[in-house]
């Protein structure tokens, strides 16, 4: 935990899940996802999506704030009506 926080502190470009609220809304059919929680399959902790760490590489990578495990990978195919999405862990999505 401390190591992961320390690592994030040195990465000035890391953002958090709040920054992709609209994108997550699109992926999850309009649900507000930053206040949803995700149980990490790696460290077992649960954290709000808004507190997950967001990295921008070739695509977007959302990671568990506890252990750094990958939660979401999104690749936008520029100009096309398709995006590639990988979801990992247990996402608790509000219904109704």
């Amino acid at each position, binding site marked *: 935990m401390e190591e992961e926080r320390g690592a994030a*502190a040195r990465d000035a470009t890391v953002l958090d899940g*709040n*920054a992709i*609220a*609209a994108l997550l809304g699109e992926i999850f059919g309009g649900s507000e996802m*930053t206040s949803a929680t995700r149980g990490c399959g790696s460290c077992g902790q649960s954290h709000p*999506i*808004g507190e997950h760490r967001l990295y*921008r590489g070739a695509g977007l990578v959302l990671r568990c704030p506890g252990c750094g495990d990958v939660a979401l990978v999104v690749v936008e195919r520029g100009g096309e009506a398709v995006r590639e999405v990988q979801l990992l862990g247990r996402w608790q999505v509000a219904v109704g």
Partner: protein
Amino acid sequence: MATPGAPLVAPVPLVWRLVTVVEVVDETPHARTLALDVPDWPGHVAGQHLDVRLTAEDGYVAERSYSIASAPEDARVALTVERIDDGEVSPYLAGELVVGDQFEVRGPVGGHFTWRAQDGGPLLLVAGGSGLVPLMAMVRHRAARASGAATELLVSSREREAVLYRDELERLASAEDGLNVVYTLTRSRPAGWSGYARRVDAPMLAEVGPAASASPRVFVCGPTPFVEAVADALVSLGHAAENVHTERFGPTGG
């Protein structure tokens, strides 16, 4: 207007709306506030942001997120944009735009970094630079609803001239209704400055309070290194991680 008592987990409005700039206010030499006329605005919760989409005549498109500065109760939706000199979008929004110009927005979005008066206090709001914007929406909402929730707002800025909303904060704090505003100036200070003059650290957060034992709702917004340092300091003071809400912004092309 947001409906009081509406569920926090409202559907995300995903349509792009064409908005018109109705007022431009220079806040500091580097930042200005854009008041917008948004057709069919669904209302927002303090702390939420908007996605902004600009389209050039040749079809080039740029998207950025900006926090909403206005309270849900305010007549106009307002964004405050700080100009990043080598950026692409912020020099346009904070420089080129004039009243009557149009661009597109989508939102409001975000439900995690939000506060509503009925959520209650105490509140600890910690702002780094233009990270003050979504926290200002909370402070304005608190005033509009006469919430009286005990609120400490700690604002970290390079210099006094770079502090957003200075006069309004002074006015709000002078009401003595439970809002206290504390500044720390990290680069230069006016003559006779008696306030903090260093980066936010654990001793400063402990002095400003409220103590972790009071279980305040804590909202921290600023550049990523600022947020990481403040969040670590808060945890070291015993604040429960689930009470600490963070929002980072970074050099994403401005």
